[in-house]
């Protein structure tokens, strides 16, 4: 049994991972956030308000959908999709954004900042900031702004200022650096809504807690439908927020296998992927100690993924710990496999998945046929693919995945 109450410990450690590796300027804000979160989570009024907006504004609970045609085609285990793609704004990210905006209001913050990779977290943050009437600034890599142009337009319509980050490889990591620089500068009145289960404590814990509703719902739904727990859970892993949200409530259900799917990009060679458990090493980045992609001199390596949301050099610290415990397994899917899965799910089930979620589907396509029809798989369909249509069209209409 895993002692869930000890994840993380008092100082934000998941075993040897996690912690608070940040400049002193941020320590006070992070400690205040921890304290406020502790109060909020014991406050029934906070929980009630969050539950109400998750239902009426975001559209929870999301369905657990039996993918009958895909199940038949693959000829193996029964496949269920947890439909986070049906949430308002189009991905699971809204769960955390809604929770954190309520925390920001409790702390009296008047300005909201966030980083975004694929733009889903940025859209979710811009959305909740608009709803709360707060100023909002989103940092986004210039490369990601180009490949996720639709989401950039959405954020702007929602009233957020989107700041292009051109440093380094101009993707998610650089956007986080810039958001942290903003936060260091404006920390007294600004709350940073970090969008994944990474960074300094308390973010990995807070983000996980706001997403565990995915797993809580899925667990109740599958018990109702199948009168049993699933054999396998699958989710894609960038920082790891949708995965930890789905997995967490099942961690002590021994018979439930869990697989996180990282971005294999063009293959596992330096600079061509974002699969931290394939080519990574232990290190410290952006506030947390975890597995990351770095050279022997400690410089963070370039990453690549067709999916902006998975294109990141470090993995959330709790994932690193649960992998050590042998509780969660990790695999990867390449760009080509993800693009194939993107088309397959669209054509077989009438659901266009986000390129991030397509990595989980890609793993499913390989794994389900090897399982028995009596077995059950739940895949987290963490986001919808509308944002990816232009990018996918450009790649696929040029002759399909290589």
């Amino acid at each position, binding site marked *: 049994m895993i002692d869930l109450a000890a994840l993380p410990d008092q*100082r934000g450690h998941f075993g040897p991972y996690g*912690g*608070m*590796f*940040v*400049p*002193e*300027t941020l*320590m*006070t*804000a992070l400690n205040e956030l921890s304290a406020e979160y502790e109060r909020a989570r014991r406050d029934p009024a906070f929980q009630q308000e969050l539950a109400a907006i998750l239902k009426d504004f975001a559209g929870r609970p999301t369905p657990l959908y039996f993918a009958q045609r895909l199940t038949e085609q693959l000829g193996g285990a029964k496949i269920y999709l947890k439909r986070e793609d049906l949430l308002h704004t189009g991905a699971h990210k809204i769960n955390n954004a809604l929770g954190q905006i309520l925390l920001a209001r409790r702390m009296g913050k008047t300005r909201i900042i966030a980083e975004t990779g694929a733009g889903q977290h940025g859209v979710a943050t811009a959305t909740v900031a608009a709803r709360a009437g707060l100023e909002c600034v989103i940092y986004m890599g210039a490369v990601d702004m180009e490949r996720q142009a639709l989401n950039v337009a959405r954020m702007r319509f929602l009233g957020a200022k989107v700041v292009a980050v051109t*440093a*380094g490889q101009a993707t998610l*990591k*650089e956007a*986080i*650096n810039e958001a*942290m*620089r903003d936060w*260091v*500068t*404006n*920390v*007294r009145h600004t709350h940073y809504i970090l969008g994944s289960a990474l960074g300094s404590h308390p973010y990995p814990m807070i983000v996980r807690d706001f997403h565990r509703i995915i797993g809580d719902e899925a667990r109740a739904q599958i018990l109702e439908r199948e009168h049993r727990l699933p054999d396998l859970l699958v989710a894609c892993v960038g920082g790891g927020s949708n995965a930890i949200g789905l997995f967490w409530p099942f961690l002590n259900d021994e018979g439930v296998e869990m697989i996180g799917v990282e971005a294999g990009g063009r293959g596992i060679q330096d600079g061509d992927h974002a699969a931290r458990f394939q080519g990574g*090493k*232990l*290190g*410290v*980045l*952006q*506030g947390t100690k975890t597995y*990351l992609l*770095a*050279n*022997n*001199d*400690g*410089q*963070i390596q370039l990453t690549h993924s067709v999916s902006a949301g998975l294109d990141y050099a470090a993995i959330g610290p709790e994932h690193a710990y649960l992998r050590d415990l042998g509780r969660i397994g990790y695999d990867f899917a390449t760009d080509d496999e993800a693009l194939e899965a993107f088309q397959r799910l669209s054509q077989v089930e009438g659901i266009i998945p986000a390129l991030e979620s397509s990595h989980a589907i890609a793993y499913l396509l390989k794994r389900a046929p090897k399982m028995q029809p009596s077995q059950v798989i739940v895949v987290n369909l963490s986001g919808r693919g509308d944002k990816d249509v232009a990018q996918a069209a450009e790649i696929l209409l040029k002759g399909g995945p290589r």
Partner: protein
Amino acid sequence: MANRIDEQLARLLKKGQKALIAYIAAGDPTLDATRALAIAFEKAGVDVLELGVPFSDPLADGIVNQMAAARALESGTTVAGVLECVRQIRRESQLPIVLYTYMNPVYQYGFERFHADAAAAGVDGLLLLDLPPDEDQHSAEFSVQSPLRRIRLIAPTTPPERIAHLTKGASGFLYYVSREGVTGERSDVAESLAERVALIRQHSTLPIAVGFGISTPEQVRAVAAHADAVVVGSAIVKRIAEHGAEPDLAEKVAALVAPLAAAAHAGAQAQ
């Protein structure tokens, strides 16, 4: 054990003078230039050299220092290369040297090994931007026995009750970040400085250095009225960026630094 930082600061303070701490990014534009700058700085009156070990993701640094780190990495600067550079500086100079960097380069080098090799090379102190005492005081991995002085940051947002916690494991000097924000020049000096420095002195007898955003002799004088040492970084780094390729880079940058050092040394008298 005797330490160049302790000795230098004690010597100055005894004379009623304040110290100038000059920051540059090691390897910007090359490690040869860094060595020449160190020697020129000592002659120009710099009291402590703060040497940035470049990191790909310097999230506490403003754009000027980010670009300096990028230039340093481009010129092939490694952690081992920086230590070798310090070893070479030590053949000619006893200028106290503090390394300023982030955890990951040190971690990949080996935390303990880094401390040992840096001390052997002639480094006197270490400032790890993203290693607060909350992490190293509880961790066997990060609490090494080392002659290196452990420089701690104190921020304007640090509450009084936390200052005691920060000063406990500190040595060499305390580094008060005079501004919220990243490194970089500012046009004025924070008003609350005198108050904050007085507050820190209630908790520690260590010398107090003040930095972040200080660039002119006037600002150095204003800060030296309260602090024991003044850190100037971005203004120097900017000058290096402007003259990086020129053969007389060291002289040109030393010309900027000398009046800053003079302002610091005169600081106590200005009160």
